[in-house]
């Protein structure tokens, strides 16, 4: 059974009068990736935290298969939703295996420790993500890309039905970005519904089935990448002129889309740049 996640009219604010986001509604699609695309500071991370139940919505609701997460316990939510945060401070020098095993927390009683079965699940997740060689390394001493894969393994150990990833590639180089996103796409094809945030339009083009465009705390478009990522919409959310290119993949013959900033964007005024910088948090 595939879990559906539905966000209904969600609003959130840290203090009165200034909503981080408002009136947000969307629904995940089965076996595919939903990408929340938007510039820095538009409220993506806050939205994802609210969807995962870590922060409470001010208004609206989040339904997991029709049931409100506001009425669910933390452990119950964590058994369905796996969440990988963007900011991640490492504390003690746990081994990779110990970190992955922590994913079993929602399935283990408060007064218990992981059993042999839990250890097996963690090992299987490590193998599936392809980091078996790192199993006994210290989590604090592996690279950013490896760490992201380890966190994915930990979330798989949680055995969730929906995966939430907050900018999973933000600190990664090109190769690791591709590795992580291919892994995410593969997981979606294997039956997980995935929601991830990104500020790279090309990632949405390549890896997602549904894109929601977020701008200043609200959604301005929702649909397939092709429908949503248009030159006009990109101009609206990023404030620069963009161009979208279509080419035929010489191997598969499929149409591949990507975008870059248009030439005019390079001429943009210095004061525009400084406003853009000061607008981001």
């Amino acid at each position, binding site marked *: 059974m595939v879990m559906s996640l539905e966000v209904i009219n969600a609003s959130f604010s840290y203090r009165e009068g200034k909503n981080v986001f408002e009136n947000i509604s969307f629904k995940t699609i089965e076996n595919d990736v939903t990408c929340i695309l938007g510039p820095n500071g538009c409220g993506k991370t806050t939205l994802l935290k609210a969807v995962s139940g870590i922060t409470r919505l001010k208004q609206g609701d989040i339904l997991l298969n029709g049931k409100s997460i506001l009425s669910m316990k*933390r452990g119950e939510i964590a058994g369905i939703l796996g969440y990988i945060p963007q900011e991640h401070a490492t*504390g003690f020098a746990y081994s990779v295996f110990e970190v992955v095993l922590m994913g079993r927390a929602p399935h283990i009683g408060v007064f218990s420790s992981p059993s042999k079965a839990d250890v097996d699940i963690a090992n299987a997740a490590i193998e599936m993500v392809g980091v078996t060689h790192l199993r006994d390394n210290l989590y604090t001493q592996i690279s950013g890309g490896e760490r992201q894969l380890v966190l994915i393994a930990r979330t798989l150990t949680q055995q969730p039905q929906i995966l939430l990833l907050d900018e999973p590639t933000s600190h990664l180089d090109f190769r690791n970005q591709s590795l992580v996103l291919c892994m995410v796409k593969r997981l979606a094809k294997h039956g997980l519904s995935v929601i991830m945030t990104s500020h790279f339009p090309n990632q949405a083009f390549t890896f997602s089935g549904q894109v929601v465009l977020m701008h200043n705390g609200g959604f301005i478009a929702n649909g397939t990448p092709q429908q949503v990522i248009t030159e006009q919409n990109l101009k609206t959310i990023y404030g620069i002129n963009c161009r979208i290119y279509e080419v035929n993949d010489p191997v598969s013959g499929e149409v591949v889309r990507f975008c870059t900033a248009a030439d005019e964007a390079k001429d943009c005024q210095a004061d525009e740049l400084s406003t853009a910088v000061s607008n981001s948090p």
Partner: protein
Amino acid sequence: MKKPKRGIIILLVLIPIGLAVLSLFIGKYHASPGDIIGMLISKIVPSFPHNSSPNLETAILQVRLPRILLALLVGMSLAISGASYQGLFRNPLVSSHILGVASGASFGAALGIMLSASPIIVQIMAFIGGIVAVGMALLINRFNHASSTLTLVLGGMIIGALFSSLVSLLTYTADPNTKLPAIVFWLMGSLASSSTKALAFAIPPMLAGILVLLLIRWRINVLSMGEEEAKALGVNTDALRITIVVCCTLVTSAAVCVSGVIGWIGLIIPHFGRMLVGPDHKVLLPACLAIGGAYLLLIDDVARTATMAEIPLGILTGIIGAPIFAYLLTKGTRWS
């Protein structure tokens, strides 16, 4: 990290037990090992021939044994609460006294001594003082809108500083001939006044706290990854945090009220434990019990036998501990 070696675990079990048995045979009351063994066996098998006196029985069973058990338990309590707090606060620099428990207990004890209360009343006042101090730190945190582990630590520091000042006030006004030495000696830590009565009062809270901490020890791993991640992993962080604080306060308060203030153990032993068995709290907390118990027992053996007069524990933990741990610091590769 690989699983901790079996050898280390066996040593961690054997050393405290061996040390405890050995400690029965050392002390100011002179008795031959044969007499002591004979007396002990005769307690289990009454027909066993032995030549012990009532004095020997009192010295071993009423004085030495309770003191050995207390040393073990106090060391265990301080070490396990220190390790738990370091996990909870994600900070290897905090100790079991971080939320003001030692200052609160000191104030309770000093007040009791000023009022010329009996030793057991002083002990109970110290216990209550420790709990009140942590309660106040929690209360401050509760009224903070953006309450977090950081504000909890700050609250603890504020309360700790307040009670330290109050202790200074009492010390300043105490009668220098009678009360002052008693207060100062109490503050430096000692197990000299341990008795079966002290043991009976302190054991229940210590064991209860230690037991609960051991039960939730794996969850402390998850909590140490940060509050949001722990929540995302399904942990009820508020409930777990308060459970840890309550347990640590119970065990530390009970420890401090029988022993006075003993630094070092709640700070250094967890590091030593991580060096031996790694940071996984599932193994670390039991390891800290063993190391903390054995370490304080060793220190207390020195305290009661090295010189004619008792040496306060607070002095020895530092003087003996500093060279040992300084050496380990230069050798350790996985020093947290």
